[in-house]
Protein backbone atom coordinates (compact mmCIF):
# COMPACT_ATOMS: atom_id res chain seq x y z
CA UNK A 1 0.00 0.00 0.00
CA UNK A 2 1.29 3.44 -0.90
CA UNK A 3 1.77 5.64 2.15
CA UNK A 4 -1.06 8.13 2.51
CA UNK A 5 0.13 11.69 1.80
CA UNK A 6 -0.38 14.18 4.64
CA UNK A 7 -3.43 15.80 3.10
CA UNK A 8 -6.57 16.56 5.11
CA UNK A 9 -9.87 17.57 3.61
CA UNK A 10 -13.07 19.26 4.73
CA UNK A 11 -15.39 17.61 2.23
CA UNK A 12 -17.68 16.06 4.81
CA UNK A 13 -18.15 19.40 6.58
CA UNK A 14 -18.65 21.23 3.29
CA UNK A 15 -21.26 18.68 2.19
CA UNK A 16 -23.09 19.20 5.45
CA UNK A 17 -22.99 22.97 4.99
CA UNK A 18 -24.24 22.58 1.41
CA UNK A 19 -27.64 21.33 2.52
CA UNK A 20 -26.42 17.86 3.51
CA UNK A 21 -25.35 17.06 -0.01
CA UNK A 22 -24.92 13.30 -0.35
CA UNK A 23 -21.73 11.62 -1.51
CA UNK A 24 -23.63 10.40 -4.57
CA UNK A 25 -24.69 13.95 -5.46
CA UNK A 26 -21.16 15.26 -5.10
CA UNK A 27 -19.83 12.33 -7.09
CA UNK A 28 -22.29 13.00 -9.88
CA UNK A 29 -21.25 16.67 -10.04
CA UNK A 30 -17.55 15.90 -10.35
CA UNK A 31 -17.78 12.69 -12.40
CA UNK A 32 -16.76 10.01 -9.90
CA UNK A 33 -18.64 7.28 -8.05
CA UNK A 34 -20.12 7.60 -4.57
CA UNK A 35 -17.51 5.13 -3.32
CA UNK A 36 -14.69 7.30 -4.66
CA UNK A 37 -16.07 10.34 -2.83
CA UNK A 38 -16.19 8.21 0.35
CA UNK A 39 -12.57 7.12 -0.23
CA UNK A 40 -11.43 10.73 -0.74
CA UNK A 41 -13.21 11.84 2.45
CA UNK A 42 -11.63 8.99 4.40
CA UNK A 43 -8.14 9.80 3.07
CA UNK A 44 -7.95 6.47 1.24
CA UNK A 45 -7.57 8.05 -2.18
CA UNK A 46 -5.90 11.26 -3.33
CA UNK A 47 -7.93 12.81 -6.15
CA UNK A 48 -6.33 14.18 -9.27
CA UNK A 49 -5.75 17.91 -9.39
CA UNK A 50 -8.67 18.24 -11.79
CA UNK A 51 -11.06 16.41 -9.44
CA UNK A 52 -9.81 18.48 -6.50
CA UNK A 53 -10.55 21.71 -8.37
CA UNK A 54 -13.96 20.38 -9.40
CA UNK A 55 -14.80 19.62 -5.76
CA UNK A 56 -13.74 23.10 -4.68
CA UNK A 57 -15.80 24.58 -7.52
CA UNK A 58 -18.92 22.66 -6.41
CA UNK A 59 -18.66 24.19 -2.93
CA UNK A 60 -17.61 27.62 -4.23
CA UNK A 61 -14.45 27.55 -2.13
CA UNK A 62 -10.77 28.00 -2.95
CA UNK A 63 -8.82 24.73 -3.13
CA UNK A 64 -6.97 25.37 0.14
CA UNK A 65 -10.25 25.55 2.06
CA UNK A 66 -11.14 22.06 0.85
CA UNK A 67 -7.73 20.38 1.03
CA UNK A 68 -4.94 21.14 3.51
CA UNK A 69 -1.32 19.99 3.35
CA UNK A 70 -0.31 18.75 6.82
CA UNK A 71 3.26 17.73 6.09
Amino acid at each position, binding site marked *: MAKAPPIANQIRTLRFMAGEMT*QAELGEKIG*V*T*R*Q*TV*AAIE*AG*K*YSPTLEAAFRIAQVFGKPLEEVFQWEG
Partner: protein
Amino acid sequence: MEKTLDMPFREKEAWLALGGMAIGYGGYFTAVAVTQGQPQANALQFILWFAIATVVRVAIEFGGRAVLATRSPGEARARPDERDRAIAQHGLAAGYGVMMLALIVAGVIMPLSVPDSWHIANTGLFGLVLAEVVRCAVVIADYRRGWHG
Protein backbone atom coordinates in the same frame (compact mmCIF):
# COMPACT_ATOMS: atom_id res chain seq x y z
CA MET B 1 -28.07 6.69 6.46
CA GLU B 2 -25.33 7.30 3.93
CA LYS B 3 -23.19 4.36 3.03
CA THR B 4 -19.43 4.90 3.23
CA LEU B 5 -17.91 1.41 3.16
CA ASP B 6 -19.90 -0.40 0.48
CA MET B 7 -18.02 -2.15 -2.29
CA PRO B 8 -17.40 -0.43 -5.63
CA PHE B 9 -18.62 -2.34 -8.68
CA ARG B 10 -15.04 -2.80 -9.98
CA GLU B 11 -14.02 -4.40 -6.69
CA LYS B 12 -16.92 -6.83 -6.97
CA GLU B 13 -15.71 -7.68 -10.49
CA ALA B 14 -12.21 -8.32 -9.15
CA TRP B 15 -13.60 -10.64 -6.44
CA LEU B 16 -15.53 -12.56 -9.11
CA ALA B 17 -12.45 -12.88 -11.32
CA LEU B 18 -10.36 -14.03 -8.34
CA GLY B 19 -13.03 -16.57 -7.32
CA GLY B 20 -13.33 -17.87 -10.87
CA MET B 21 -9.57 -18.29 -11.17
CA ALA B 22 -9.23 -19.94 -7.75
CA ILE B 23 -12.05 -22.42 -8.27
CA GLY B 24 -11.54 -23.15 -11.98
CA TYR B 25 -7.78 -23.20 -12.35
CA GLY B 26 -7.17 -24.17 -8.72
CA GLY B 27 -8.96 -27.42 -9.54
CA TYR B 28 -7.00 -27.83 -12.77
CA PHE B 29 -3.57 -27.32 -11.22
CA THR B 30 -4.44 -29.58 -8.27
CA ALA B 31 -5.32 -32.33 -10.77
CA VAL B 32 -2.11 -31.66 -12.71
CA ALA B 33 -0.01 -31.84 -9.54
CA VAL B 34 -1.65 -35.10 -8.46
CA THR B 35 -1.12 -36.80 -11.85
CA GLN B 36 2.38 -35.47 -12.57
CA GLY B 37 4.69 -38.34 -13.42
CA GLN B 38 1.89 -40.90 -13.72
CA PRO B 39 2.02 -42.89 -16.96
CA GLN B 40 -1.73 -42.55 -17.64
CA ALA B 41 -1.52 -38.74 -17.76
CA ASN B 42 -1.80 -37.67 -21.38
CA ALA B 43 -2.25 -34.56 -23.48
CA LEU B 44 -5.95 -35.11 -24.18
CA GLN B 45 -6.64 -35.41 -20.47
CA PHE B 46 -4.84 -32.12 -19.73
CA ILE B 47 -6.70 -30.35 -22.55
CA LEU B 48 -10.06 -31.64 -21.32
CA TRP B 49 -9.35 -30.56 -17.74
CA PHE B 50 -8.17 -27.16 -18.89
CA ALA B 51 -11.31 -26.71 -21.01
CA ILE B 52 -13.51 -27.59 -18.01
CA ALA B 53 -11.54 -25.20 -15.78
CA THR B 54 -11.95 -22.41 -18.34
CA VAL B 55 -15.70 -23.01 -18.62
CA VAL B 56 -16.01 -22.91 -14.80
CA ARG B 57 -13.97 -19.71 -14.62
CA VAL B 58 -15.96 -17.99 -17.38
CA ALA B 59 -19.28 -19.12 -15.86
CA ILE B 60 -18.36 -17.72 -12.44
CA GLU B 61 -16.91 -14.45 -13.73
CA PHE B 62 -19.41 -13.58 -16.43
CA GLY B 63 -22.42 -15.19 -14.75
CA GLY B 64 -21.60 -13.35 -11.54
CA ARG B 65 -21.17 -10.10 -13.41
CA ALA B 66 -24.55 -10.57 -15.09
CA VAL B 67 -26.17 -11.07 -11.67
CA LEU B 68 -24.43 -7.97 -10.29
CA ALA B 69 -25.46 -5.93 -13.32
CA THR B 70 -29.08 -6.97 -12.78
CA ARG B 71 -28.96 -5.90 -9.13
CA SER B 72 -27.25 -2.55 -9.77
CA PRO B 73 -27.56 -1.68 -13.46
CA GLY B 74 -26.51 1.94 -12.97
CA GLU B 75 -23.14 0.97 -11.47
CA ALA B 76 -22.61 -1.70 -14.13
CA ARG B 77 -23.21 0.80 -16.95
CA ALA B 78 -21.08 3.56 -15.43
CA ARG B 79 -17.64 4.08 -16.91
CA PRO B 80 -14.69 3.58 -14.56
CA ASP B 81 -13.81 6.83 -12.79
CA GLU B 82 -10.30 8.14 -12.11
CA ARG B 83 -9.84 5.98 -8.97
CA ASP B 84 -11.02 2.85 -10.80
CA ARG B 85 -8.55 3.55 -13.61
CA ALA B 86 -5.63 4.25 -11.25
CA ILE B 87 -6.27 1.05 -9.31
CA ALA B 88 -6.72 -1.00 -12.50
CA GLN B 89 -3.40 0.31 -13.79
CA HIS B 90 -1.66 -0.62 -10.51
CA GLY B 91 -3.11 -4.13 -10.71
CA LEU B 92 -2.01 -4.54 -14.32
CA ALA B 93 1.53 -3.42 -13.51
CA ALA B 94 1.80 -5.95 -10.68
CA GLY B 95 0.35 -8.77 -12.80
CA TYR B 96 2.62 -7.90 -15.73
CA GLY B 97 5.73 -8.34 -13.58
CA VAL B 98 4.59 -11.80 -12.49
CA MET B 99 3.70 -12.76 -16.07
CA MET B 100 7.11 -11.71 -17.41
CA LEU B 101 8.88 -13.73 -14.72
CA ALA B 102 6.74 -16.79 -15.42
CA LEU B 103 7.27 -16.56 -19.17
CA ILE B 104 11.04 -16.26 -18.73
CA VAL B 105 10.99 -19.40 -16.58
CA ALA B 106 8.65 -21.38 -18.88
CA GLY B 107 9.86 -20.00 -22.21
CA VAL B 108 13.58 -19.56 -21.70
CA ILE B 109 14.88 -21.55 -18.73
CA MET B 110 12.73 -24.69 -18.72
CA PRO B 111 13.15 -25.64 -22.41
CA LEU B 112 16.88 -25.93 -21.74
CA SER B 113 16.48 -28.26 -18.77
CA VAL B 114 13.06 -29.97 -18.79
CA PRO B 115 12.31 -32.55 -21.50
CA ASP B 116 8.57 -32.88 -20.75
CA SER B 117 6.70 -30.36 -22.93
CA TRP B 118 3.49 -30.58 -20.88
CA HIS B 119 5.43 -29.68 -17.75
CA ILE B 120 6.66 -26.56 -19.54
CA ALA B 121 3.20 -25.75 -20.90
CA ASN B 122 1.59 -26.13 -17.47
CA THR B 123 4.26 -23.93 -15.91
CA GLY B 124 3.48 -21.25 -18.49
CA LEU B 125 -0.26 -21.58 -17.85
CA PHE B 126 0.34 -21.42 -14.11
CA GLY B 127 2.32 -18.22 -14.62
CA LEU B 128 -0.54 -16.64 -16.57
CA VAL B 129 -3.08 -17.65 -13.93
CA LEU B 130 -0.81 -16.43 -11.14
CA ALA B 131 -0.38 -13.09 -12.91
CA GLU B 132 -4.15 -12.69 -13.10
CA VAL B 133 -4.55 -13.68 -9.45
CA VAL B 134 -1.94 -11.09 -8.45
CA ARG B 135 -3.71 -8.44 -10.58
CA CYS B 136 -7.05 -9.15 -8.88
CA ALA B 137 -5.48 -9.29 -5.41
CA VAL B 138 -3.76 -5.92 -5.90
CA VAL B 139 -6.99 -4.34 -7.16
CA ILE B 140 -8.94 -5.66 -4.15
CA ALA B 141 -6.22 -4.57 -1.70
CA ASP B 142 -6.12 -1.07 -3.24
CA TYR B 143 -9.89 -0.65 -2.91
CA ARG B 144 -9.93 -1.88 0.68
CA ARG B 145 -6.75 -0.34 2.06
CA GLY B 146 -6.50 2.75 -0.11
CA TRP B 147 -4.35 3.73 -3.07
CA HIS B 148 -2.63 7.05 -3.62
CA GLY B 149 -0.66 6.26 -6.78
